[in-house]
C-alpha cells in the first residue's frame, strides 16, 4: 500500500510523526539506538518485536512520554520537545499499557478527561467538549455505559472506555501500547476492528504496539519490526513476515501461509531455534 500523505513544500511527504536518530537509554544500556522512523498520515502501523526489543520505549518516545538522549521526534514537522505539552495533547493521543484509574470513576468521567488539553482544568465543558465526548462514546459503543463505574466493567469494556478517553482528545494521531493485552480473543478482535474503523472512517493515523504477529499483519498496512532497539524490517506485512525474519528476530521456525480470510500472511511457528 502506498503512503498517501500531505506534501511538504519541497514536494516530499510530511510525516505525521518522525523519529530521527533517536537514542533512548536506561543508564548505560541503549534501548533504542539511532532509530529512524517515519509515520505517514492516515496509516495504521504496527510495531512488533520480541520482548525487550524497545517497542514500548519507542511508542513512549513518539508520544513524548520519554525524552530521547539523542535525536528528536517531530510531530507534523515540529520538534515535539519544543511544543507546549497541551498543544501536543491536542494533536496526539496515547493509550499507555495497562492504564489504571480510581475504580469509582464512571466511564463518562473517564472519557471527559480527554478534554483536559482542550479546556483548562475545572473550566466548564463547552458544547464542543460534550460533542467530542459523545462521539468518543458512540464510536466505542460505550454510550450506554457512561454512568457506570469502571470497576463494574469487563476487561473488554474497560479497554473500550480507555480508547474512548483517547478519542475524546480528538487528535489526528493515536498511539496505542498493546491495546489487546489481557483481553480474550473476542474482545481482542473487537478492539482491533474498532482501530481499523477509526482509521478508515475517520482517517486517524494510528501506531500500535502489538504482540500477536498475525493480528498485526491482518490489521496494519505496515509492520515495523524492532530488535535490540533497531528497526530490522519495515514494510507491508507480506514483505516483512518471512521465515528468515522469524528465525532471526524471534528465534522460531515457522510456516507462513496466506490467511484465507484476509490474504494477510499468517505465521505458524513450530519449533524454537533459539537466538544468539
Amino acid at each position, binding site marked *: 500500500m502506498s503512503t498517501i500523505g500531505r506534501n511538504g513544500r519541497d514536494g516530499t511527504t510530511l510525516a505525521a510523526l518522525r523519529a530521527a536518530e533517536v537514542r533512548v537509554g536506561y543508564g548505560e544500556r541503549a534501548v533504542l539506538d539511532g532509530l529512524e522512523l517515519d509515520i505517514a498520515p492516515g496509516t495504521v502501523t504496527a510495531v512488533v518485536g520480541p520482548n525487550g526489543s524497545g517497542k514500548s520505549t519507542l511508542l513512549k518516545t513518539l508520544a513524548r512520554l520519554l525524552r530521547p538522549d539523542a535525536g528528536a521526534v517531530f510531530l507534523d514537522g515540529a520538534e515535539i520537545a519544543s511544543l507546549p505539552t497541551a498543544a501536543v495533547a491536542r494533536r496526539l493521543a496515547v493509550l499507555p499499557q495497562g*492504564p489504571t484509574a480510581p475504580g469509582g470513576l*464512571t466511564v463518562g468521567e473517564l472519557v471527559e*478527561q480527554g478534554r*483536559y488539553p482542550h479546556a*483548562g482544568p475545572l473550566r466548564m465543558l463547552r458544547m*464542543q467538549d460534550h460533542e467530542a465526548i459523545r*462521539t468518543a462514546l458512540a464510536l466505542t459503543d460505550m454510550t450506554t455505559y457512561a454512568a457506570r463505574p469502571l470497576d463494574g466493567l469487563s476487561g473488554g469494556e474497560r479497554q473500550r472506555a480507555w480508547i474512548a478517553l483517547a478519542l475524546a482528545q480528538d487528535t*489526528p494521531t493515536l498511539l496505542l501500547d498493546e491495546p489487546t493485552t489481557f483481553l480474550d480473543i473476542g474482545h481482542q478482535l473487537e478492539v482491533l476492528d474498532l482501530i481499523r474503523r477509526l482509521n478508515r472512517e475517520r482517517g486517524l493515523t494510528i501506531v500500535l504496539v502489538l504482540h500477536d504477529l498475525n493480528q498485526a499483519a491482518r490489521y496494519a498496512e505496515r509492520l515495523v519490526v524492532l530488535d535490540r532497539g533497531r528497526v530490522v524490517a519495515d514494510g507491508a506485512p507480506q514483505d516483512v513476515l518471512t521465515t528468515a525474519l522469524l528465525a532471526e528476530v524471534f528465534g522460531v521456525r515457522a510456516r507462513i501461509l496466506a490467511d484465507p480470510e484476509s490474504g494477510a500472511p499468517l505465521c505458524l511457528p513450530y519449533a524454537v531455534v533459539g537466538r544468539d
Partner: protein
Amino acid sequence: MEGRVITRATGRAAGPTTGFALLPRSAGARRFPAFLAGVGALVIALAALHIGLGTVRIVPGEVAAALLGRAADPVHRQIVWELRLPRTLIALVAGAMLGLAGALLQAITRNPLASPSLTGVSAGGVLAVVAWLSFAPAGLAAAGVLPLLALAGGLTTITLVYALSWQGGSDPTRLALSGILVGAICSAITLILLVLDAQRIGSVLRWIIGSVNGRVWVHWEILWPWALAALPLGLLSAGAANALGLGDATAAGLGQRPERARAALLFVAALLTAGAVAVVGAIGFIGLIGPHLARRLVGDDARRAFPLSAVVAAAILLAADVVAQALTLEFPFGDATRRAGLPVGALTALLGAPFFLYLMLREER
C-alpha cells in the same frame, strides 16, 4: 483511501447528530447537590449545638438570641461572642482544611490510606512547637508564635519528604513511604523532648492530641488567611487531580506535567494541613475518614469528592467536639483541678474508627 484527509477527526458524531444533549449523569453526580446541601445543613446544626456546649451550657435558642445580640443574659452574649463562636468557626474551618488535605493526598498518592498525618506535615508541625517550648527562652512562648512555628515545621517537613522521595522523579508510593518515615522520626523526637522536659507536657499535649479548647479570636486571626488562600486552591486543583489520578503516563498524554502537578498539589495539601495543625494541633483521622465518606457518597471524581470531603470532615470534627464538650470532665491541672472539655483529637479516632469499620463491613455484605 482518498477520503481520509477530509474525514480526519473533527469531534463530530459519525451519524447525524440530533442537536446538543447532555450525557446521562452518574449516580454520584446526581446525588452531589443533595449531599452537599445535606451535610452543609448538618454542619450548621452541629455548629449551633457546639456553640452552646462548654463549661457553661447554653441552649440553642439562647445561642441564636446571643448571636443576634438579643440574649437575655449579657454573660451568655459575651461567652457566645468572645469564646464560643471563634472556637466553633475554628473547628469548622480546620476540619474542612484537614478533610480537603486528606482528599488531595489520597488523590496524589493514589492511596486510600493517605492522610495529613501520613505526609509528616502534622508531626513536623508539632515537633517545631515542642522544640520551641523546650528550648526557647521563657516568655517568648506567646500564643501567636506557636502556630507560625507549626506552619514552618510542617512546610519544612513536606519539603524534606519530597526531596527524600525524589529519585530522578517523584513516585506516589515513595512519597507516601518517605512521609511515614519522616513523620515517625518527628514524632519520636517530640516524645524524647517531652520525656526530657516533663513539666511542659500539659501545655504541649493539646498540640499532639489536637484540641479546639481555648481557641479564640486570636487563633482565628491566624487561621482564616490560610484557609482563604488554601481552601480555594485545593478545590481548584480538582481537575488536575483527576488527570493525575489516571497515572503519570496517561496524565502526560493528556498534556499535564505530572511531576509539576504532583509537587503543586502536595504543596497545597501541606498548606492546608499546616494551617490547620498550627491552630488546632495534630487532630488525627478526620483527614482520612472525611474523604473516604465523601467518595463513597459521590464517587471518585475530584470535582465532587474534594468539596464534599471538606464539608464532611468539618461535620465530623464538629460532631466529635460536640461529644468531647458534652463529656466535660475534671482534669488534674498542675496543683488544682479544672473543668474542661476533652481534647477532640482524643475522640476523633475513638468515634470515627468504629463507624468507619461499620461502613466497611456493611460494604462487604
